[in-house]
């Protein structure tokens, strides 16, 4: 979806955010599923910063230049066009050295799960409003 035409960049950002949120749900549910697997390291996913950065870059008109802000970033991890934002995946290793080296906290994952869900629904609602506005202006009757 390009920014021209009737769909503006807000729609684009919301679209991408929902996409990333549903991907994040997959990561969280993998952590919950592996909450008792010995040696499992919690998988984390961050995309908020990268998305914010790409929004501000697109807003100032500096285009699709990609840059990395962290030595472990993949080339598509941050900056660049909104559609290119993939999020940053990393595993947090268990540091304390006791037990079975599994560092999943079920409470943490549950909190993340509900936060993710609320933000997803907020995105859905905003996208719905956006489309309703479009619908309103393209109606012929007054």
């Amino acid at each position: 979806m390009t920014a021209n035409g009737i769909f503006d960049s807000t729609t684009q950002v919301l679209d991408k955010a929902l996409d990333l949120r549903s991907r994040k749900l997959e990561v969280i549910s993998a952590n919950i599923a592996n909450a008792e697997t010995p040696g499992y390291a919690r998988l984390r996913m961050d995309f908020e910063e990268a998305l914010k950065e790409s929004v501000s870059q697109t807003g100032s008109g500096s285009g699709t230049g990609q840059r990395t802000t962290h030595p472990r970033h993949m080339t598509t991890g941050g900056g660049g066009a909104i559609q290119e934002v993939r999020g940053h995946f990393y595993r947090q290793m268990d540091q304390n050295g006791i037990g079975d080296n599994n560092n999943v906290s079920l409470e943490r994952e549950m909190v993340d799960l509900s936060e993710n869900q609320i933000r997803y629904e907020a995105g859905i609602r905003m996208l719905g409003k956006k489309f309703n506005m479009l619908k309103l202006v393209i109606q012929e009757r007054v």
Partner: protein
Amino acid sequence: MDILGVMNIGYSALKAQTTRVNVISSNLANMETTRTPEGGPYQRKSVIFTSSSRGFAQELENSTRQQAEGVEVQRIVSQQGAGKMVYDPGHPDANAEGYVEKPDISLVEEMTDLMKAKGSYEANVTSIKAAQRMAIKALEIGR
């Protein structure tokens, strides 16, 4: 197919936890079993979980990003070693001194494990429900 991915991950965990509950109930049922086809008393069994391995094609497709994995039961292991000796001269399996070898199963340990399995199962049901709810919400866009 992220939503379906979540469903598959959740399902793998539900399956693994069900196997775990089966093993626990087998342990509880056989707390007093002194004869088995293999000979000797029943040996306590436990499950070993592992992150599920993926096929090559999927691995290739996702080679650029870290992938969320499900869980599966790698194997069920029997605890090796002698059971606990209980003095019961009237028992048909008693030895010359009147002791019977019984499985070394702790009721408290099994019940704790059962509660943990139940908790994990519920957590995974919650994540499947979250996926379902998000999918339903997505269908409401533009309504």
